[in-house]
């Protein structure tokens, strides 16, 4: 019973904040409501006994990505966007598409519900503790994807630096050469 109450609390906060993210006029307000959504999703991870992922969610999403968003909102003056229309012209078609999408997803969950019942506690964790378990599997069975992910992050860092470099400095260096 307590599990259900906690789930509905976090789920309600997540869904309401997510709706506010896409309806607020100001990008800063959207970022703050996105923080609320991400933190309640971290709470749902905790209720699923994924403690490591809950920590990663708070550290990487709220502490990293969201701070990056707020920095960019600070760098890019969005005053003009405050007085413009919020939604584009194809809003009605978009809502119809989204209704079809949620109907499809709901139908899939409804039809597949019989196959969601798994034997409880089929495999016991090999080691104590969620973080240790995740780390063991990540470094033993998934070492190659882990290394590829690190290369992806390196490429993203270089790409972000190249993209946000001022074009004028590139011209000056070209003239200098």
């Amino acid at each position, binding site marked *: 019973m307590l599990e259900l109450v906690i789930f509905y609390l976090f789920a309600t906060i997540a869904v309401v904040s997510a709706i506010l993210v896409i309806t607020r006029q100001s990008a800063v307000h959207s970022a703050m409501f996105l923080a609320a959504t991400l933190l309640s999703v971290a709470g*749902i991870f905790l209720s699923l006994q994924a403690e490591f992922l809950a920590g990663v969610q708070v550290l990487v999403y709220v502490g990293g990505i969201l701070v990056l968003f707020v920095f960019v909102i600070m760098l890019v003056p969005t005053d003009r966007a405050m007085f413009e229309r919020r939604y584009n012209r194809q809003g009605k078609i978009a809502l119809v598409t989204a209704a079809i999408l949620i109907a499809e997803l709901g139908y899939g*969950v409804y039809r597949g519900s019989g196959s969601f019942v798994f034997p409880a506690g089929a495999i016991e964790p090999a080691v104590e503790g969620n973080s240790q378990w995740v780390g063991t599997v990540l470094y033993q069975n998934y070492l190659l994807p882990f290394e590829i992910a690190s290369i992806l992050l390196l490429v993203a860092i270089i790409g972000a*630096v190249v993209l946000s470099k001022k074009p004028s400095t590139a011209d000056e260096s070209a003239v200098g050469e």
Partner: protein
Amino acid sequence: MVSLHHYLILSAVLFTIGVIGVLTRRNILIILMSIELMMNAVNINLIAFSGQLQDVIGQVFAIFVIVVAAAEAAVGLGIVIAMFSNKETVNIGEIDLMKW
């Protein structure tokens, strides 16, 4: 008792909200935030099945999804800054250089 359906339906609702945000908003920063919402919805699915199957592979996969989300946010926001220094706008309606 919280069943798997609860998590799947929550995930579907969050994903659809993200889709609506991507399709309807005009501010490119909020479109990027909606993409983050969709990635989070996928992570809920992965971790719910991981918990249900008592198998940690779903959580390992969710870590990779978070890595991709972080890379996407960094490059996407870099593009936003580069675009703003050229066009002085965050409105996707005005970013139409490659529109035929």
